[in-house]
Each structure stands twice: as C-alpha cells, then as structure tokens.
C-alpha cells in the first residue's frame, strides 16, 4: 500500500473505503467478463462439474432456505397484523402477505440466507484452494480455473437460487397461513382466498427474475473474494466476511433497481 492510502482520519477512511469499493467492483466486472467469455466457448463447458455443483449447492441450502422462508412468511403476516387489527380489513391479509413475499421479502431474505449458506462456503472453499496452491496446480495441468472451478459454480448458484426462491415463496405463504390462524386468529381460508383473489403472477415472476440476478451476484461476489485470498487462515476468514457483506449490498441494490424497472 502506498503512503497516500494510509491515513487514519475519518475522511481518509471514508475515501479509502470508496477507492476499495471501486477496485472491488472493477475486479468483479473483469471476472464476470471472463466467465462470459468462457461460457461463449461452449464446447469447453464442463457439464459434469456443473451438475456436481448443482447438487452440492442445492442439497446444502434447501433445508435452511425452506426453514427461513417459512418463518419469514409468518413474520410478514404478524407484521401486517397490527395494521389489519387497526383497520379491520382482514381480507387484505392474504394480499398483503402475498405481495410482500413474492415481490420483496421472499427473494431478498432467501437471497441473504443463500449468500450466507452457499456464498460464504464457496468463498471459503476457493480461498482454501488458493492458499494451498491447488489453483496453481490446475493451471500447471493446463486446466483453466475459470472454466473448471468458477463457471460451474456460477451457473449452479443462479439455477439453484431461482428454484429455491420459487419453492421458498410457497413455504413462506404456508408459514404465513399458519401464523394467520395461530397468532392473528384469522381463518386460513380468508388468507388463501385473499392470495388467490389478487393477481400476483407479475409479482411472482418479478421475484424470480430478482432471484436470477441475486444468484449471479452471489456467484460473482463469492468467487471473486475466494480467488483473491492471501495470508492463510486469517485471509480466508476475512474473505468470507467480505463476501457475505458485499453480497448483501449487491442484493439490496439490485433489488431496488429491478423493482423500479419492473413497475
């Protein structure tokens, strides 16, 4: 690090964070380009490894995502509870829960959970491989690390988060219906009717589109931080930390832009 970046003043820290942020975004863009270039060379696509990764990612994250989604759905219903109690508009419960879950809360919270479960794990795996020279070993064997390591994981994460969000959304609704009856004391039929009455197809699809972009984001972010690890065990820990933080920011930012563009 050159001298100018070593200030400890508040403004200095702020400035350094900014510069680091730009560098990180730049590096991730480069990685994304390399991934796309690798994908374009279709004959080199590692089908076997992609399938392996799909299974790993899916099996690892399904239980946790489903559990999270269920409770999140319940939470949404309880949160709307006060409002409904105040206005007496019980029939709106289904609509409120449905919209919230499909369009915002579902994709974002499932995405955050996914970033924790899969993204962090991915960064740790790749980071450990870098630190133990396994990535260099691949290069020396003439195997392109991007094509073999990164692309399959990237694809697997997009596909899996898409599926998980779809499944998770449904579990969230289910959790909401139980909370509706158990906590709010409202008949479940009113809840489900409310959902079916409102045409939520557009929200559902928007949520899935978000999931695709979130999956891609978690993929790029986790792979980037994994590949740039230096410094042994501490470096891997730091990289995992950076990875989940960056993913979270990316999810919130992308979420906003997709919502605005879609509506």
């Amino acid at each position, binding site marked *: 690090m050159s001298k100018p970046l070593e200030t400890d003043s508040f403004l200095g820290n702020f400035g350094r964070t900014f510069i680091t942020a730009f560098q990180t975004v730049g590096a991730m863009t480069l990685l994304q380009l390399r991934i796309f270039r690798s994908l374009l060379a279709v004959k080199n696509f590692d089908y076997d490894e992609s399938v392996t990764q799909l299974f790993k990612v899916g099996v690892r994250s399904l239980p946790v995502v489903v559990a999270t989604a269920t409770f999140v759905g319940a939470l949404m219903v309880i949160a709307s509870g006060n409002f409904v109690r105040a206005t007496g508009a019980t029939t709106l419960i289904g609509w409120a829960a449905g919209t919230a879950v499909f369009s915002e809360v579902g994709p974002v919270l499932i995405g955050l959970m996914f970033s924790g479960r899969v993204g962090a794990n991915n960064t740790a795996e790749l980071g*450990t491989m870098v630190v133990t020279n396994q990535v260099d070993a691949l290069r020396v064997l003439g195997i392109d690390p991007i094509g073999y390591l990164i692309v399959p994981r990237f694809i697997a994460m997009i596909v899996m988060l898409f599926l998980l969000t779809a499944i998770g959304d449904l579990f969230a609704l289910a959790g909401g219906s139980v909370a509706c009856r158990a906590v709010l004391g409202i008949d479940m039929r009113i809840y489900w009717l409310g959902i079916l009455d409102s045409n939520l197809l557009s929200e559902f699809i928007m949520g899935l589109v978000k999931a695709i972009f979130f999956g891609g984001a978690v993929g790029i972010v986790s792979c980037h931080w994994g590949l740039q690890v230096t410094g042994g*065990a501490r470096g891997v820990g730091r990289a995992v930390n950076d990875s989940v933080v960056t993913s979270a920011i990316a999810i919130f930012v992308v979420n906003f832009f997709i919502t605005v563009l879609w509506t």
Partner: protein
Amino acid sequence: MKRLWETIRSPFQLLGRTIALLPSARKSHRKILESMYSIGNQSLVFIALTLAFLGLILVYQGAYQALKVLPDLTPVGPVFIGTMVRVFGPTIVALMLATRVGAGIAAETGSMTVTDQIEAMKVTNADPVEYLVVPRFIASIIMMIVLWVFGVLVAVAAGTLIGTLRFGIQLRTFLSLSGTTMSDVWVALFKCVIFGAAIPILAADSGFKATGGSEGVGWATTNAVVHSLFTVILLDFLISSIAYRFGW
C-alpha cells in the same frame, strides 16, 4: 439428531458462562469501548448503504401499492416509519450485523482457535470467555441499539427522498409519527437487546469450534453467518408473535 442437540446446546452454554462473567466486565471498560468502536467502524457504511436502499424500496413499493389499491398516499409515510421502527429496523440491522460483525468475530476467534492461541490462553489461566466474549457481548448489545437508531434514520431519510420527490407526498404528511407507538419502540428495543446478544455468542461459539487451518476458519465463519441469520429470524418470529398476542 444428537448433533442437532449439541448445536443448540453449545451456544446456550456459552451464553450462560458469558452472563455469569458479566460482573467482571466492570474492569474492562477499555475493551468494551474498543469493541464498540470496532463494530461501529466496520458496520457504519455497510448499514448506511443497505438501509438506505431498504428505505427506498419500502416507500417505493408502499406508495406504488397504495396508489393501486387505495388510492391515497397519506398513510404511506406513517406506516412506513412505524414498520421501520418496529419490524424492519431491528430485523434488517440485525441481519446485517450478523453478516458483518458475526462473520468478523467468528473469523477472529476461529483463527485464534486453529493457531492454538485459545489453548495458550487457557494454559496461562486467562479465561477466553472473559477476555474475548464478554466485552464483545456487551459492545454488541449497545451497538445494536445505536445502529438500529442509525439505520432507521438512514432508511427514513432515503424513504422521504423518494416519497417526496418521486411520489410528491408532502413532507409533513410523510414524516408523521402517527403510525408509531411507544410500544413499537419498546418491542424494538427488546428485539435489539436479544439480537445483539445472540449474534456474538453464536459467532464466538462457531469460532471456538473451528478445527484444521484455513479450511476450519472458513467453515466456522460460514457456520456463524448461517446460524446467526436463522436465529435472528426465528427469535424475531417468537418475539413478534408474543408481542402481538399481548397487544404490545
């Protein structure tokens, strides 16, 4: 099944020991303040960014749906602020804290564990829980409350911007506290304390269980994040349900 029980039991044990050691914290003012500073420093920008976008999206969606269904924009501001204070504030800030600070604590304690520094502490009669966990525990609870306030302010500021500029809501109509009650604040504070307590315990617990070099530290950090995220949501559900039932 046995592993599940062990996973649940171990953080509670750590929690118990931490609480038991709280009185000794009186002499570690400095460490607590250091921890607080560190947590704040690490998370400020991160929470500002994420909560700003959260505020933007909540108001955007809220106003959009209100226009579609009601069509009246007056409740948007008050409902937004009320839900921010009571629901999204504590929860989202806690989730962000879990990823930033939880991962950080797990990485630190994890690498100390795999490099045998924890063993070294025990051997020289220094209790790792007293030195490492207790200060962070207290700091985390305090900072959780601070960051909740900060986060809510940022989100409301961002929400106000988009509410007034994009949807043309009057500032006075928007920035109304009519949707927020005192009990909202109390419930939120309670959530902050609970979340603030849970995160460092889960993180340190994962860290202490790390084995095996960089792979172990990576695993510990992942574990900490996943457990913290899930626990926050679970606790949130429990607290919210009870609060609702009691009409708080």
